[in-house]
């Protein structure tokens, strides 16, 4: 199964990059962990994100769209980085996540969320729906 692992933001991560020497130590520890993930065939993707002060939100309300500039409050709900892992089950994802060096100077959290898989849609994607989608595609491609 494929999971996304979120590194949740903290007040520290929202301030931007830490001082160089702290960052070097963090890169080293994280690099070692990432190498383990790669050698186990678990890591598929991953990266770090800039603080929410660099971000924007698009708010939807009926036909209206408004753009909200960062930074955003609710720091604990923000994301500072992510991985995509392929694992056998959630137990394995949890076991790997526990091995991660603390990504932040203070207390922090990782959050693991499984992707939807083909079979999750099951009967929801009926042949009728598929046909409908096919017709729509044909119209779009002008056939």
């Amino acid at each position, binding site marked *: 199964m494929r999971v996304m692992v979120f590194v949740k933001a903290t007040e520290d991560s929202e301030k931007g990059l830490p001082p160089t020497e702290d960052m070097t130590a963090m890169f080293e520890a994280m690099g070692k962990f990432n190498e383990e993930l790669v050698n186990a065939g*678990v890591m598929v993707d991953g990266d770090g994100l800039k603080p929410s002060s660099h971000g924007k939100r698009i708010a939807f309300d009926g036909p209206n769209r408004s753009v909200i500039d960062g930074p955003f409050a609710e720091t604990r709900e923000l994301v500072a980085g992510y991985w995509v892992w392929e694992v056998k089950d959630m137990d394995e994802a949890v076991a790997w996540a*526990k091995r991660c060096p603390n990504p932040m100077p203070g207390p922090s959290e990782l959050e693991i969320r499984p992707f939807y898989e083909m079979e999750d849609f099951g009967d929801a994607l009926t042949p009728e729906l598929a046909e409908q989608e096919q017709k729509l595609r044909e119209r779009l491609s002008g056939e």
Partner: protein
Amino acid sequence: MAKDETHRAIEAVFRIERARLIATLARMTRDVDRAEELAQEALLIALTEWPKSGVPDKPGAWLTAAAKRRLIDGARHEAMRTRKQAEIARELDEEPDMRVEAVEAAIDDPLGDELLGLIFAACHPVISPEARAALTLRLVGGLTVEEIARAFLSNDAAVAARITRAKKAIAKAGVQFEVPRGAELTARLGSVLEVIYLIFNEGYAATTGPSLVRPPLCAEAQRLARILAGLMPEQPEVLGLLALVEIQASRLAARAGPDGRFVPLTEQNRARWDQLLIRRGLNALARAEALDGADGPYALQAALAACHARARSAEETDWVRIAALYDRLGRAMPSPVVELNRAVAYSMAFGPEAGLRLVDAIADAAALRHYAPLPAARGDFLFRAGRTDEARAQFEAAAALSGNERERDFLLARAAACAP
């Protein structure tokens, strides 16, 4: 945490460590069965100890130390019975320090050599390719016999027997659990790549059974290819194979329609292709090519898959480039199957007659005598050339040869579409 939950957490840690643990133990005991037993015993010890002590910082080293202690205890008990075990006991006794830190230092294995050694042993050419696949899934992938049997639509007893035979063959041939060097490495690596691709293909183009694809088997093969690429990042063909399985797997969701029916590449909904896997595949291919590996058989097949991955619609496919890549693949890996695919590429690039000319040249190849894709391709060329009567006969012949129910339905539908 509830007891069950604790056990599950410990078992998850064990699963992460299992392959390397078995690799270390197999190298010590030169006996895969014994290595598996000892690993299992180490798990049982962990299940009693860790709920009290917590999961240790270095669980791999801890488990190795526990298994090693069991090995020594066992060897001491049996010391008088056989000389071999006495030797092992003596050898192990000479290693003075059994603390976790010492074991950790001793198995300080940044290159993953032990795991690689196990992979090379499980894929040793003294074993048949099917048995290699089963043994690799068992030892490296950690699948149970039941899971392997289900994956290959076989029964448990047959798979268990196959694995037992494979282990005996390894023991009899005196296979070392080491990574081969020099010229031997090249030859043995071919055998490893073959096994991983065999596992992948059994998931991607199931040769038998009711369903067209078996994604869990593809996932296992991808994982093995990723592990190998992590451990051997300088081997272009490893990267070529990784690129090939990543790009092909990107189409898994689009390959079977919602009703389970086979959807050919040119008709697939490309929006359902997994862009993350395509990106990973293209990246691996670029690395293989940068290592002068562009003309390796796997890299060439990956380059072919990449041509499709890069085309946003079937019409945009660069068939001339694909035909040229098949010319190179035919030289790197001459085979009637490659020639057949070359014919398909030529038919797309230069018209159905070009395909028919190439396919006629291989019509008598023994390897293709019962090969459904041959009449299926010829049927397609004939159909496109407007020779529908001849096309129908070819599609019907192909359907009769196909072992996969979904593929058969597809071919019969094409035969029916040949009605005047």
